């Protein structure tokens, strides 16, 4: 689990997780990318709470590991300036069968979005500094569905 400024290589991270393993039958890799919103957005600035961001990602990963029989988990979240096309977040889950890997990856993303202390600010191509992205009700609903 990492919080970092640098770009990561999603396929290299996933490959390292299964390197030398013969027992893993399923790997789900999810990468969230910065999109340009039809050319309007020039960059995202991601602010984070150092210390708590790492702690929350670890907590969420441990929760996933306790819910599903996983053979491996990776979660990486970037901060700082991010350009359209660059990756922001990576979740990789590995398990014996696909259902657990899919479910755990979905759970991890839903929880990271609503529990890990990161905030996105938009910068627009017309040089204006935009607003802070507002939390979406559907993201909260997605995280809530895993409870109970």
């Amino acid at each position, binding site marked *: 689990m990492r919080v970092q400024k640098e770009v990561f290589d999603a396929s290299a991270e996933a490959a390292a997780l299964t390197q030398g393993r013969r027992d893993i039958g399923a790997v789900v890799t999810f990468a969230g990318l910065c999109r340009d919103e039809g050319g309007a957005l020039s960059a995202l600035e991601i602010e984070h709470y150092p*210390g708590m961001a790492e702690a929350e990602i670890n907590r969420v990963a441990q929760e996933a590991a306790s819910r599903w029989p996983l053979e491996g988990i990776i979660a990486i979240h970037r901060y700082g300036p991010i350009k359209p096309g660059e990756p922001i977040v990576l979740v990789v889950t590995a398990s014996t069968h696909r259902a657990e890997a899919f479910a755990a990856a979905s759970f991890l993303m839903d929880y990271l979005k609503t*529990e890990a202390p990161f*905030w996105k600010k938009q910068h627009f191509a017309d040089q204006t500094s935009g607003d802070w992205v507002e939390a979406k009700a559907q993201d909260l609903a997605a995280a809530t569905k895993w409870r109970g």
Partner: protein
Amino acid sequence: MPSERAAPKIINMKALYFAWVRERIGKAEEEIAPPETIKTVGELMGWLHGQGDNYAAAFAHTKSMRAALDRCHVKHDALIGEAREIAFFPPMTGG
């Protein structure tokens, strides 16, 4: 005999602000010393609201504001207790 009076208990804690909370207040962190009557996170928000126009702007609508005590998410009715660090921020938008 001189009577010894206990020094008033000074509760210093570090307050951290993120995203638009930080921008409205104009600083990322500071040491705060709220009065002893402030027991909960919500009461501290109310006290901070009265510390100046910038704080009033930041804490104008606290319903959706989130807080963390010593880096753990808490609700507004949580007791501050012995926490050394409190953070205020909008709902998170990572991922």
